[in-house]
């Protein structure tokens, strides 16, 4: 491939040299149209510079600045809305926590009230029960106190009746009771 390229280059450069000899080298170095080129360059570039700097570039700069300021404004608005919504969120949170506190307080109060009521009721019932128990105990005590006399009375009666039935004689109750009392005393003495 290298050989081909070299061959081609040689062929072409030979051609080139032959042709350029006809026209006389680089056209750039031919001063025939230099003045004309300078003249037209000055005119076209001058017009381009004046129109760009006076009319077009200020417009583009304006557009860019307007866009920048608009974007900044939008960002500001978005920031404001963000802080606003954050505040709203905080308020809502506060309301919710307040409501929770309130509910807790109400619950606790209700609990206390119920416990108080319960305690009262219990006290009442307990005192009633206590008085009833006291009554019953008193009764029992009375009964216990009165029982020996009654027993002796019953014993006297039964003894008198038994004696009557056995012997057919009416026995003086005071005698019988004296005997019974003696017996009771004896039994107690044992």
């Amino acid at each position, binding site marked *: 491939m290298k050989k081909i390229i070299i061959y081609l280059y040689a062929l072409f450069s030979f*051609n080139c040299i032959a042709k350029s000899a006809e*026209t006389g080298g680089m056209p*750039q170095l031919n001063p025939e149209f230099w003045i004309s*080129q*300078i003249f*037209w360059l000055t005119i076209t570039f001058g017009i381009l*510079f004046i129109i760009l700097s006076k009319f077009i570039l200020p417009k583009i700069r304006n*557009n*860019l600045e307007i866009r920048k300021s608009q974007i900044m404004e939008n960002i500001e608005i978005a920031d404001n809305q963000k802080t606003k919504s954050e505040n709203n969120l905080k308020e809502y949170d506060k309301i919710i926590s307040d409501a929770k506190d309130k509910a807790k307080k109400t619950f606790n109060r209700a609990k206390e009230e119920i416990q108080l009521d319960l305690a009262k009721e219990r006290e009442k019932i307990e005192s009633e029960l206590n008085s009833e128990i006291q009554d019953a105990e008193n009764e029992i005590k009375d009964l216990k106190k009165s029982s020996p006399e009654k027993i002796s009375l019953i014993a006297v009666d039964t003894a008198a009746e038994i004696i009557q039935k056995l012997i057919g004689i009416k026995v003086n109750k005071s005698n019988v009771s004296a005997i019974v009392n003696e017996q009771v005393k004896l039994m107690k003495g044992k």
Partner: protein
Amino acid sequence: MAANPMYQFNVYRIGPEIKIGEVDISFTNASLFMVISTLAILIVFNLGAKKKSLIPDKIQLLSELSYSFVSKMISDTAGAKAKPYFAFIFSLFMFVLFCNMFGMIPYSFTVTSHIIVTFVLAAFIFIGVTIIGFLKHGLGYLKLFVPSGVPIILLPLIVVIEIISYLSRPISLSVRLFANMMAGHTMMKVFGGFVVSLGLVGGWLPLGFSVALTGLEILVAFLQAYVFAILTCIYLNDALNLHH
């Protein structure tokens, strides 16, 4: 005649001969392409500047992107002081770019492939920058040739080198653009000539080269316009912010 790769750079008169005194300022094909480039720039950017929508369409976006591109280039290289020269550098960049790009159209003429055009532009920039430098700093502008922190023994040599490099600025600036454009177009013409002379059998390889070169040349057309503009910015930076 078409086989000569230099033929495309020929300048010829279009229309009548115009003369002021002894000076020939006839309208040529070079003038025609200068006018076409100028008109194209004005039309494109006028269309782009007309609309003021918040969300730009394509042509508006194009003009606004070029605006911010050039303005960023200037502020990066020459700082905020170079703002008044924005319009000039913008026109310069666009003019060179459009002339280069119009030159890429087959059978068209590349304005910037002529040394006289690029040299006039470069000389104008050189003279303008020198005047700005002397206006801003007075004779202190000559400090540009005396870099700080150089041993006194070396100073004469450095100053001479600096002066030579400063004076060669317009030449290097103009020759860079002119040589790039001319070489690229000549190469394309050469490979195009290969395609024709080798015909259907051997012409495919140079045809491929030609296609690749077209892409490369479009890149070079943009790059050289950019380099031209950025070097102008750097020269302007030297004149505006004297810190060497």
